[in-house]
């Protein structure tokens, strides 16, 4: 079940998505973290960040909105405190990196390179940060520039995570490939607004959370995006958006994905990454496929 993107080896194609799994080790009471294909860390910035004030979570029909605002411990503490633990516990991880300038990303890349971090996922699409961050993900020229610069500083497996909040995802995917990335992950959250209005004792009360929409509700959008990205690039695609069961994996493969990230569903069923890996392995064995690659090929061939 092991798979490889560039030189980065994962135990299986099921990855815990950034922002939904912390820095991996906190989840040990709830699932067998060492069996997960890989864990994408919470988005990490150069400096620690405390994130947004106010309400950060809003549940929606078949999904949720978050506006965490990249609360994280910063790359320095990550390297010092987390990497040793992850290594000791044999947890495969991907550094999810975010910044607001090309310099931020370049520096993160150098630090990642120097510290032997094997895979890095650029979050160029976080809709929760006011500064530059989102812009890279929506403009193909800036994105090309950004990824090229990071590529220069970083020798490991470079994954770029695309946002669905754009007119032309194809152009962005092509730019990422041209700039030398090793894979594309898609999708980040959709821009969403949650409003709850109650009328009590003659007065209106309102809760409002503007942020990123995730969960089952976005699966059709994610599948459409993955399919479009597939038309624009030959890079491996890590598909995500509302994945919750085995057949979802097949759907993403059919759209063009090679591996998967699981986000919101970790909150609903915290051992879902283990379950999916087991079910996938079991499906391959019981139905006589050679291996995961073979299954993937067969699914891509279906008319």
């Amino acid at each position, binding site marked *: 079940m092991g798979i490889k993107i560039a030189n980065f080896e994962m135990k299986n194609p099921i990855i815990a998505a950034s922002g939904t799994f912390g820095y991996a080790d906190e989840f040990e009471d709830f699932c067998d973290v060492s069996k997960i294909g890989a864990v994408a860390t919470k988005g990490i910035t150069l400096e620690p960040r405390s*994130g947004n004030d106010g309400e950060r979570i809003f549940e929606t029909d078949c999904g949720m909105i978050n506006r965490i605002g990249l609360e994280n411990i910063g790359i320095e503490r990550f390297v010092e405190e987390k990497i040793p633990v992850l290594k000791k516990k044999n947890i495969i991880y991907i550094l999810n990196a975010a910044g607001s300038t090309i310099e931020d990303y370049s520096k993160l890349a150098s630090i990642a390179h120097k510290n032997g971090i094997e895979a890095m996922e650029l979050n160029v699409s976080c809709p929760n940060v006011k500064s530059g961050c989102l812009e890279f993900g929506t403009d193909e020229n800036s994105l090309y520039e950004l990824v090229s610069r990071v590529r220069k500083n970083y020798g490991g497996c470079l994954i770029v995570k695309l946002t669905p909040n754009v007119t032309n995802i194809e152009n962005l995917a092509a730019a990422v490939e041209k700039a030398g990335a090793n894979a594309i992950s898609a999708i980040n959250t959709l821009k969403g607004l949650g409003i709850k209005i109650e009328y009590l004792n003659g007065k209106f009360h309102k809760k409002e959370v503007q942020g990123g929409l995730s969960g089952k509700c976005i699966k059709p959008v994610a599948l459409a995006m993955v399919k479009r990205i597939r038309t624009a690039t030959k890079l491996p695609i890590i598909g995500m958006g509302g994945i919750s069961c085995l057949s979802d994996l097949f759907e993403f493969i059919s759209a063009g994905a090679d591996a998967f990230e699981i986000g919101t569903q970790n909150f609903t069923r915290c051992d879902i990454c283990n379950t999916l890996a087991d079910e996938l392995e079991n499906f391959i064995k019981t139905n006589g496929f050679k291996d995961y690659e073979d299954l993937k090929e067969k699914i891509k061939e279906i008319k």
Partner: protein
Amino acid sequence: MKKIQKGTIKKNRLIAKDTFALEILSDVKEAHSGQFISILCPPKVLRRPFSIKGFKNGTIEVFFKLKGEGTNYIKSLKEGDNIDFLGALGSGFNIKNKKSLLVGAGIGIAPMLFLKDELNSRGIENFLITGFKCENEVIKGSDKTVIGGSVIDFLPEITEKFKPQIIYSCGPEIVLKLVSDFAKKHDLEAQIAMEKVFACQVGVCRGCVIKILKDGKVQNAAICHDGPVFDAKAVVWE
């Protein structure tokens, strides 16, 4: 994976208007007042957290009030039905060997009753006051029950008579805030159980953070993981 639990419903009964007491048989080994469990409600994406009201030999009791789809799902559970929950989660009350005043508001009485049991079993003197909006919402078990008015109005009088050294409280944010103010004014220690919408329930998503003062610095704390119980003095109100 010790905190994913599959339990079975032992009892699910109405105890007040729109309020139910749910008993769950489980393998849980330990639980303390102030901790909570998070119940999977299949119609919803996010688990629903409920304070533990009592714990004995693996049987967990919670009180829940009907709000929306999640609690209506839980209401539909019958004896023998399976239930998927996480727990016991969070860090509960840090029990001190001090004369304790317990202040509950509405369904916030649940962890207070559990705390009262724990205090009693340690022989710590305590007094529980709880407030409810109206008669038919009253849940029994308090030393004083306020109906209609605010529990806060009774704190001076009780403090005068009972002379507590510490206050523990659970209820809506507004009540907790007033309890904190009161404690500060009377130079009393106070521990309060906070609430926010939870996503992950376990501290990883950073969805439920509040600001607290720690080591002289304002920091983030996840209610679900670092709380729900906080030292009232440490909480930085928004």
